[in-house]
């Protein structure tokens, strides 16, 4: 809501500066989004009379004008405009003048003649688009005064952010009332006493309300002999400052009064109202109307319309119809000042995707008591500006008059809620200054009567807020409550922080991606492994079609993140994300937390101390196992999997017991190509809730007092045999085995075709004694035997 300072000043005496007022308003709840001085771009432009016009000695295109700028002196300017004549009063930019856009004017020579300045067009002053000629001011304009004072530019524009509950402040009067209360001044309402003709409006117009629930009040005035023409300059200027486009005096006055009072008005060309009858009714399904925006709207039974005896002439409270628009030939005008239910207007506006200044106000609630005043005010202005003859009486359909709300208010409760003792007297003063009626009842409470223009004041707490606003939030002390029942972070929250610390300590960077998902990716995802039986959760009104579902996995966000970084030459990426995924499974909606990991490049670039080593499967597996080990998990296992977005021979699922934790593997080479990666990408996604729930608490084990015995063994086995199977057999076979390390895996030269060599280091240790060579030898023999019989493994010479 944009309002000129001068307009506010008409309704309340303001002795402080615009800046001070803006600060006071902001601190009392009427947020001032911006405050600007209109004439800030203009300097040294004055009114002046053209005393004499004579030809330029050196060209036919230009004239010499002798100017009288009163106290500013007499001067001569060169001018090329043809719309001026001697005696005209015009704006004169003198030496050192500045015009909007930073244009500087100075004394200079033009075709051999000195010009002391320049005559200026409305466009050059920035007050309209009119650049056809010099701005001609009214002939009674005083000369030698600052042009900004004459054209209304010596003014400030306030831009207010009005909260949805303060519909009363969608009009100048509402804001002026706030200011009056703040400054302790009286609110002055603009005149609305109309000179009426003998003819009764009610004898000419018939109004019938068929939906009184949606339209509880309909007030109208009939105007005759209306002269439709452009509005005067001052009115256009105020409308434009408020962001409205001037159209003609009738339409402009309806808008002007709406801006003043907050009550939307509509003007019908009465000659277009068939049967001279207004019917407020619900539309018939499929009924059509062409609105003032030129578009045709198809209506349904939930839409309230203003109709004549046969068809709609307006979408009630939203927009008028083209068929009854006021135009330059209009002479009879029906002014509508009605009240519509907010819910009805909200629904209509949303359904038709059509909103207007009127619908915006009706949605937020307009005072039902204000319709007649607004109609009178508009009639008063049109009698003046359009020479309108106002028919006698207001046609006013108002079956159930407003019952003023009464609220019981306890000053003691207010002090208690606010945490400061404020006197009942001060509270009463606040209410009174806001136009509320106060009736003291007894020591503990008063009764406050709420006028219709404050529909937001419904309860005691709403009045407590008014007290706080005008007492000043910053006058209330600051205290800390005594807190009971603190319980800190829960175990999952603590655990998740630790998990992040572990990953960060291991060199992974945390990232965050949007929770959206492109459904076209789902054919590569859904139906496999952890995604079997998974359906997407879709967004009904997505911003982008590529973001029209919620992510069932973190991996695509991570892939995009890697891609984006590579395109910016950020290499060697090891990233993780912890976030929610969303899906439906067996009809049930799920929202679960996942950990996604992605590796691309290597742990570090080559430098003087380190070689570059590209990430491989075992780097990824190592990160996964770091997490499992950090949670004291031991018995995890891997199974082959067939996720279509992963490399078919480089992927696995990881389990703890029977619980699937997630998958890991290389991004499918086809996808690597699709995403245009030249590097290998390694991916994992884990169910961290499952890890959290499987985690173990460590329990102390005696530190062995007896030395370990080491034994290295190297075997030749078929290439296809997984080393994990060998390890499992070793662990199951040998006693006193503390740990086994795979210290070498070799395929290639010097080995028989189809074979590989695998070397193990076995650590034997007993808690109760030093193991003898003999005992170790026996265990080693068992291992050799078991591997040989199970896997046909041949012991190699060490």
């Amino acid at each position: 809501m944009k309002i000129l300072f001068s307009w506010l000043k008409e309704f309340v005496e303001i002795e402080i500066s615009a800046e001070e007022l803006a600060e006071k308003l902001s601190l009392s709840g009427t947020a001032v989004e911006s405050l600007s001085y209109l004439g800030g771009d203009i300097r040294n432009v004055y009114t002046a009379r053209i005393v004499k016009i004579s030809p330029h000695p050196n060209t036919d295109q230009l004239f010499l004008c002798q100017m009288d700028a009163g106290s500013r002196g007499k001067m001569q300017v060169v001018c090329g405009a043809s719309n001026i004549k001697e005696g005209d009063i015009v704006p004169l930019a003198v030496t050192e003048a500045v015009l909007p856009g930073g244009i500087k004017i100075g004394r200079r020579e033009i075709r051999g003649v000195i010009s002391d300045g320049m005559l200026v067009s409305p466009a050059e002053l920035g007050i309209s688009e009119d650049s056809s000629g010099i701005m001609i001011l009214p002939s009674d304009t005083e000369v030698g005064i600052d042009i900004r004072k004459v054209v209304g530019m010596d003014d400030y524009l306030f831009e207010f952010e009005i909260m949805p509950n303060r519909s009363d402040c969608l009009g100048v009067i509402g804001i002026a009332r706030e200011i009056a209360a703040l400054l302790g001044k009286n609110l002055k309402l603009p005149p609305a006493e109309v000179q009426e003709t003998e003819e009764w409006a009610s004898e000419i117009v018939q109004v019938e309300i068929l939906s009184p629930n949606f339209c509880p009040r309909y007030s109208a005035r009939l105007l005759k002999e209306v002269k439709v023409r452009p509005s005067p300059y001052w009115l256009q200027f105020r409308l434009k400052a408020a962001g409205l486009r001037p159209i003609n005096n009738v339409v402009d006055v309806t808008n002007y009064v709406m801006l003043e009072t907050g009550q939307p008005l509509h003007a019908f060309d009465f000659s277009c109202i068939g049967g001279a009858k207004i019917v407020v009714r619900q539309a018939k399904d499929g009924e059509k109307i062409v609105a003032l925006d030129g578009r045709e709207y198809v209506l349904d039974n939930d839409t309230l319309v203003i109709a004549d005896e046969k068809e709609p002439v307006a979408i009630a409270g939203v927009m008028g119809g083209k068929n009854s628009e006021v135009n330059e030939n209009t002479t009879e005008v029906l002014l509508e000042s009605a009240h519509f239910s907010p819910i009805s207007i909200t629904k209509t506006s949303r359904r038709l995707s059509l909103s207007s200044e009127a619908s915006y106000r009706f949605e937020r609630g307009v005072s039902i008591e204000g319709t007649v005043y607004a109609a009178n005010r508009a009639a008063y202005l049109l009698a003046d500006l359009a020479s309108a003859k106002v028919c006698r009486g207001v046609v006013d359909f108002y079956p159930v008059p407003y019952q003023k709300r009464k609220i019981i208010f306890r000053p003691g409760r207010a002090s208690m809620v606010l945490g400061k003792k404020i006197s009942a007297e001060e509270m009463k003063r606040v209410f009174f200054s806001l136009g509320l009626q106060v009736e003291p009842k007894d020591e503990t409470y008063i009764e406050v009567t709420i006028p219709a223009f404050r529909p937001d004041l419904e309860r005691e707490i709403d009045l407590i807020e008014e007290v706080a606003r005008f007492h000043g939030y910053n006058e209330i002390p600051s205290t800390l409550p005594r807190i009971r029942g603190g319980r800190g972070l829960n175990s999952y929250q603590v655990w998740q922080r630790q998990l992040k610390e572990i990953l960060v300590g291991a060199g992974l960077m945390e990232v965050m991606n949007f929770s959206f998902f492109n459904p076209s990716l789902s054919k590569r995802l859904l139906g496999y492994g952890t995604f079997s039986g998974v359906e997407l959760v879709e967004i009904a009104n997505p911003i982008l079609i590529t973001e029209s579902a919620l992510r069932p996995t973190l991996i695509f966000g991570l892939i995009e993140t890697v891609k984006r970084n590579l395109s910016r030459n950020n290499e060697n990426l090891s990233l993780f994300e912890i976030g929610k995924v969303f899906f439906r499974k067996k009809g049930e909606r799920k929202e679960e937390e996942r950990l996604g990991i992605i590796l691309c490049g290597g742990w570090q670039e080559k430098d003087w101390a380190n070689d570059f080593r590209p990430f491989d499967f075992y780097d990824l597996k190592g990160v996964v196992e770091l997490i499992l080990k950090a949670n004291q998990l031991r018995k995890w296992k891997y199974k082959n999997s067939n996720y279509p977005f992963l490399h078919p021979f480089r992927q696995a699922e990881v389990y703890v017991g029977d619980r699937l934790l997630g998958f890991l593997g290389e991004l499918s080479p086809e996808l690597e190509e699709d995403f245009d990666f030249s590097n290998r990408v390694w991916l994992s996604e884990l169910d961290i809730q499952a890890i959290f729930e499987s985690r173990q608490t460590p329990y102390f084990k005696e530190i062995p007092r007896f030395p370990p015995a080491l034994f290295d063994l190297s075997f030749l086995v078929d290439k296809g045999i997984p080393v994990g199977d060998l390890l499992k057999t070793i662990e199951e076979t040998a006693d006193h085995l503390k740990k086994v390390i795979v210290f070498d895996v070799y395929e290639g030269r010097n080995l028989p075709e189809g074979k590989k060599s695998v070397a193990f280091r076995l650590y034997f240790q007993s808690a109760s004694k030093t193991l003898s060579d003999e005992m170790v030898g026996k265990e080693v023999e068992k291992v050799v035997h078991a591997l040989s019989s199970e896997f046909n493994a041949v012991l190699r010479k060490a």
Partner: protein
Amino acid sequence: MDLIFQLEKLKEEALALISTAQSEKELEDLRVKFLGRKGEITMILRQIGKLSAEKKPIVGAKANEVRDWLETLIEDRLLRFKRSSFEEKLKSELVDITLPGRIPRRGRKHLITQTIEEIVDIFLSLGYWVAEGPEVETDYHNFTALNMPPHHPARSLWDTLYLKSPGEDLLLRTHTSPVQIRVMQKEKPPIFIVVPGKVYRRDVADSSHLPVFHQIEGLAVDEGITFADLKGTLEFFSQRMFGADKRVRFRPSYFPFTEPSAEVDVSCFCEGEGCRVCKGSGWLEILGAGMVDPNVFDEVGYNNEEYTGFAFGMGVERIAMLKYGVSDIRLFFDNDLRFLEQF
């Protein structure tokens, strides 16, 4: 020859040899030459037995003296050699202290995670605890229960993403406030919680808007909680978060689920000089707050005469932008390594 004389001569000779010896090896050889089993001193000592009884002790003493002297001398020289060769060895191990170290690779928690933890920790220190809730919410929890029945004009304050969900009114929560409702429906006061989490708006990303971002919600409900308590709490938070010298300002505002409501500003880092960040006002808007609206208490079945409470909410990205000078909110979800590594 007189053994005494021989000893003296030997001493002279040994001194000359030992003091000119060039290596540990030479010294070891000299040790053998003089003190070894077949060394010259040993040879002399062997002859003592043949001497008269009166000469025996004199020569014996002298021989022992020379032997001890030689031993000390050689040991001393050896030690000197050892020390200098040790020094040589150390010298050869010289490092270039200017070569870069092998820094173990370290990741970073995302700046948003760091900021959430920072904020949450301030409230944990006051005795609050952390509650969380779903990102997919019902229309009821996100709006209706928060004093915004269907068609309430305040609903337009949030551009909402709705889900395709036959039979259910589901949406992506537009704020963390629905968690207030979930917690209060489950528990009785006292309630002192903070709620971090992702929230969603149907906004196109630009330098100050994102369709997905983070909020932290706070809720305090107990007997006798006042607006002054809200002020004190948020002042405490602001000064911990932004610096003890910061001033805090409260402006009346409107939220459907609080009454009275406030916007809270903290004094700008420019100290009122006026800068780009505060647009010259000297104040930075950091959060919205207010006393819990009695209608919300009615909705969750709390007695609104017995209990009062306050709630507040802040945008984590905004707080991080102000505190760390981040110029564009999109950077948080852009995940450029050069951004992530800075924090």
